[in-house]
């Protein structure tokens, strides 16, 4: 940054900080994420923010200082809104501009100073946007994996009998995941019978039925049997109305009936002790 | 690794070499065991088609990159009789060899991308791609 700009900011350091503090002190109102933050903590954060920002600007670094970066990252990590930081940077730009305008510079000089300042704040904006998008992208991909894993659990209920409850809509990607999980799990648990429970699947159309039939065929190929359970009345209706042929696979209305059938297939039964 | 590797297909054993190459490359690129099997099987089907219908041709395999993903591309080409009616061979159950008729529609289902180019008496080229998930 050129020396004039430097001098102006350094010289008016205190009044910039004061005006900034004044404007930013109102930020807490109306921010839902900050309603449970005490006034003291908020004002302390403000002081830290402006001190580090001021140090960054007056030290004239090309890149963001580790201290300021650390402050940004901490603020985001504890769940403060991103616009606390963006608002802070914009407010800094605005109050500094006011201060510059209060001086007696000619137009060109004033513009030069402002331009330099703007560019240096721009770098900070980029930094924070990059950091947050990176964090969000990570979070999304972790959640996507977690969701996929949650979406097709395989539960061994008796020796050689395993249940896979399906919940939610089934698209092609999920269907592939379900199939792989189902087969790996069936082998791991040495399942002779696998019950697929579709109680939690809201809509069974031709596509979903196709995926379920394929999964059942694959289960048969690896050497286990598949029973489809949780066929609600409306699903039975759609299956027949759509002309979907499920006759190759045993089906039961609910999980209980399915387990009884599975026990029978594995030569077991549950008896009441007299 | 970006180089293209080819196997000439003239006899039944070349089918095995072609799928061995696909198996090795897909493993190297980090495909899941299911996708490795899909790629290997697709190559086997295409190489067998060359052997059965064209007599000779080649299967080329190379790693490919897109904007945000990478994968494996396979080109099976021959200078055989070509395919009269592509629409027909892309129907499930169509077969001229007395096989299961899983053929090309099956290959298409195994892969993410499938394109075919064929002219009668000139030859056939099939390009398939599988992307890393």
């Amino acid at each position: 940054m050129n020396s004039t700009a430097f001098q102006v900011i350094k010289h008016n350091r205190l009044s910039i900080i004061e005006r900034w503090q004044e404007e930013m002190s109102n930020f807490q109102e109306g921010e839902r994420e900050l309603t449970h933050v005490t006034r003291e903590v908020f004002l302390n954060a403000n002081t830290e923010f402006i001190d580090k920002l001021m140090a960054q600007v007056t030290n004239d670094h090309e890149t963001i200082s580790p201290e300021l970066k650390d402050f940004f990252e901490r603020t985001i990590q504890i769940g403060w809104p991103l616009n606390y930081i963006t608002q802070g940077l914009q407010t800094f730009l605005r109050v500094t501009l006011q201060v510059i305008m209060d001086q007696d510079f000619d137009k060109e000089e004033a513009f030069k100073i402002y331009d330099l300042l703007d560019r240096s704040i721009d770098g900070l904006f980029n930094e924070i946007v990059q950091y947050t998008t990176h964090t969000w992208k990570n979070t999304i991909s972790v959640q996507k994996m977690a969701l996929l894993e949650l979406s097709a659990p395989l539960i061994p209920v008796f020796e050689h009998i395993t249940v896979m409850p399906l919940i939610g809509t089934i698209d092609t990607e999920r269907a592939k995941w379900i199939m792989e999980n189902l087969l790996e799990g069936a082998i791991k648990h040495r399942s002779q019978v696998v019950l697929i429970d579709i109680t939690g699947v809201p809509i069974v159309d031709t596509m979903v039925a196709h995926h379920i039939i394929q999964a059942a065929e694959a289960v048969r190929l690896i050497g286990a049997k598949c029973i489809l359970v949780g066929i609600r009345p409306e699903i039975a209706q759609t299956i027949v109305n759509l002309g979907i042929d499920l006759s190759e696979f045993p089906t039961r209305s609910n999980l209980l009936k399915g387990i009884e059938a599975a026990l029978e297939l594995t030569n077991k039964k549950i008896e009441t002790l007299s | 690794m970006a180089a293209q590797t080819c196997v000439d297909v003239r006899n039944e054993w070349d089918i095995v070499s072609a799928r061995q190459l696909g198996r090795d490359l897909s493993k190297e690129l980090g495909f899941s065991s299911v996708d490795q099997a899909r790629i290997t099987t697709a190559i086997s089907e295409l190489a067998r088609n060359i052997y059965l219908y064209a007599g000779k041709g080649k299967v080329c395999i190379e790693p490919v990159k897109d904007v945000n993903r990478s994968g494996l591309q396979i080109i099976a080409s021959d200078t055989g009789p070509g395919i009269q009616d592509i629409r027909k061979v892309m129907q499930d159950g169509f077969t001229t060899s007395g096989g299961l008729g899983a053929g090309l529609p099956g290959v298409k289902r195994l892969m993410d991308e499938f394109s075919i180019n064929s002219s009668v008496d000139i030859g056939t080229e099939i390009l398939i791609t599988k992307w890393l998930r």
Partner: protein
Amino acid sequence: MRIPILKLHEYLLISIQMELDDMTALQFQEDLLNKIHDTGARGVVIDLTSVDMVDSFIAKVLGDVVKMSNLMGAKVVMTGIQPPVAITLIDLGIVMRDVPTALDLEQGLDKLQQELEV
């Protein structure tokens, strides 16, 4: 290369441990049928645990050998089909509905025993 066929009482056991080229597959078909004829075996278990790929040709040879064995009075059970193989077969549209399957050799033998008792 030939696939070894083991005899155990009235059963034949085959574990396919090699890359199946077309000739080996067809040779196996012939060998198995001859062995059924020679031994009068009533049951056959073909274990595919070590097979990592089955294309439509091999699937057809295996499917055919099951039908041919049945004609000769021997029941066949296929065991140990791995998930990647099962999934690719489904993708290819091959379901082998007439082929009895079991998880592993042990359950395959149990299945044969049950079917032969009835």
